């Protein structure tokens, strides 16, 4: 060990008075969480996404009989949805258990940091990571789509008769990357944020991150099938009041993730009505907020 120098921590007491809520503390926690996720190399995930999108781009040229740009949009948006959910799940599930296991949580909460700031900061860090990931995926997606568009246009120019060329080119341009894809990408982001917040809620009381991940996956699946299941159950004439209450309970606790399937419509070029976009976005934001508040309540009373 190096010799210890004379004791001097610098100036006299320079620490400002404690405030009930401080953006500085929340920002420090969020920034640190983002740094943790980036330095833990989670963005290798994005490489997989890149391979999938670029690979499908090459594949569709050679083997598909459908509109290759359309297939690319389907694959790209679908992969973006799955990857952002998975990224959020894997990153969030281990945040609190790891801090607890390493006792870093004790050191943080032994400072004048309220527990709600800790949860808030962690969640903002995950949100930051997801926003960066979605932006990178969107940029890559738009780039590959743009390249395919150029290839298609060049092929058309070479092989299409002059009188049909303008119409054919317009068709290709219409199926390529357009502004109407943006609301779809925003909804994919909101869905990932919702699922990450749910995972964080589970991790505030779970004793293992494996349990957190499994439960989160199960809720994700329930969220996707509950709408169809509810319709099937309740469509029969003789439905017991018990089943109705159970169905309403499931619908309330688990988010109906099928609502986010409007992204599939966007992929085929359908213009999403603004009202529907805001309805789905608001639904996602509301569930995110409720799960966040529940996480705060559970964590506030947890014995560490």
């Amino acid at each position, binding site marked *: 060990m190096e010799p*210890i120098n004379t004791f001097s921590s610098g100036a006299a007491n320079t620490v400002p008075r404690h405030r009930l809520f401080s953006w500085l503390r929340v920002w420090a926690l969020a920034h640190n969480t983002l*740094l943790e996720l980036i330095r833990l190399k989670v963005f290798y995930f994005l490489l997989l996404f890149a391979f999938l999108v670029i690979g499908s781009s090459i594949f569709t040229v050679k083997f598909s009989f459908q509109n290759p740009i359309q297939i690319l949009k389907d694959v790209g948006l679908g992969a973006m949805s799955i990857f952002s959910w998975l990224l959020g799940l894997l990153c969030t599930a281990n945040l609190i258990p790891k801090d607890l296991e390493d006792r870093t949580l004790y050191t943080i909460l032994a400072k004048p940091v309220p527990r709600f700031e800790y949860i808030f900061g962690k969640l903002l860090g995950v949100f930051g990571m997801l926003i960066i990931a979605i932006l990178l995926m969107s940029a890559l997606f738009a780039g590959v789509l743009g390249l395919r568009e150029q290839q298609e246009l060049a092929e058309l120019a070479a092989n299409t008769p002059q009188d049909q060329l303008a119409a054919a080119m317009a068709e290709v341009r219409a199926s390529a990357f357009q502004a109407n894809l943006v609301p779809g990408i925003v909804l994919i982001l909101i869905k990932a944020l919702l699922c990450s917040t749910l995972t964080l809620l589970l991790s505030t009381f779970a004793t293992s991150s494996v349990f957190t991940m499994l439960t989160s996956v199960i809720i994700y699946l329930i969220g996707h099938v509950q709408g169809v299941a509810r319709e099937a159950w309740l469509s029969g004439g003789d439905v017991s009041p018990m089943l109705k209450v159970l169905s309403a309970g499931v619908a309330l606790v688990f988010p109906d993730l099928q609502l986010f399937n409007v992204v599939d419509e966007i992929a085929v070029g359908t213009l999403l009505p603004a009202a529907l976009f805001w309805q789905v976005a608001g639904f996602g934001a509301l569930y995110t907020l409720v799960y966040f508040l529940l996480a705060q309540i559970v964590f506030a009373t947890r014995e560490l």
Partner: protein
Amino acid sequence: MNPPAITIQNLSKDFAVPFRREPVRALCDLSLQIAAGEVYGLLGPNGSGKSTTMKILLGLVLPTAGSTAIFGVSSKRVESREAVGFLPENPYFYKYLTGLETILFFGKLCGLSGSTLKDKAHALLRTVGLTDAAERRLGGYSKGMLQRIGLAQALIGDPRLLVLDEPTAGVDPAGSHDIRDLILQFKAQGITVLLCSHLLSQVQEICDRIGIMHQGRLLTEGRLDELLNSHAKPEWTLENASPELLAQIEVLAGKAGARIVEKAQPQTDLERYFLEVTRGTH
């Protein structure tokens, strides 16, 4: 009159155990006061309730009964931690941060920012002798270096109370000596220190007062010199004493009505006292 640095009143803590009706009692009616500026050693075997006491004091665990306060502010209030610097046992900080980034992070949690924070962080790294390792990631730090970065983060908020849980655990003797010197410097600066350690010789050297816990109860506490003196028996350590001299001493002791209780190799006083208390022979 200034409030005590630590006030613990009738503190009890039960932990629920799954599939068992009866909870486990970790603390039982513990009362304790530590004055500002004191260095207090909280001793006890593993599972005696020291860590639970510290966790309640720091607001990490809620008590079943009783209360704790730091400089008069209840531990249930976040403001009470303004005055505290805490070093947990075997601290593992974020491995992906450098030493400097770690101190800056904890400084921000204390409400510091800008050049004040940077100056303070550099000064603390000098204090704990880690200036050369400031830009290295903690993943590459030795145990002793981690312990020292832990001390630096505990000091970043200008604490009036330092809670140190086994600050020398796993540290080599030289490093342990350095940490002991640092604690003595804190003491000279008037910082109150609550120290939990199994290194009894070090506790004896540093602490003004000690408390010994066992099975969730405070068995005894008080000034170290008083506790040890009241139980001490005169003990000489002789060098180059011939068997004849020892025989003469025995004869003289017998004539004076004294009895030689034990002939043994010298032992640390506190160590013996600690064993007596925890084994119920006190």
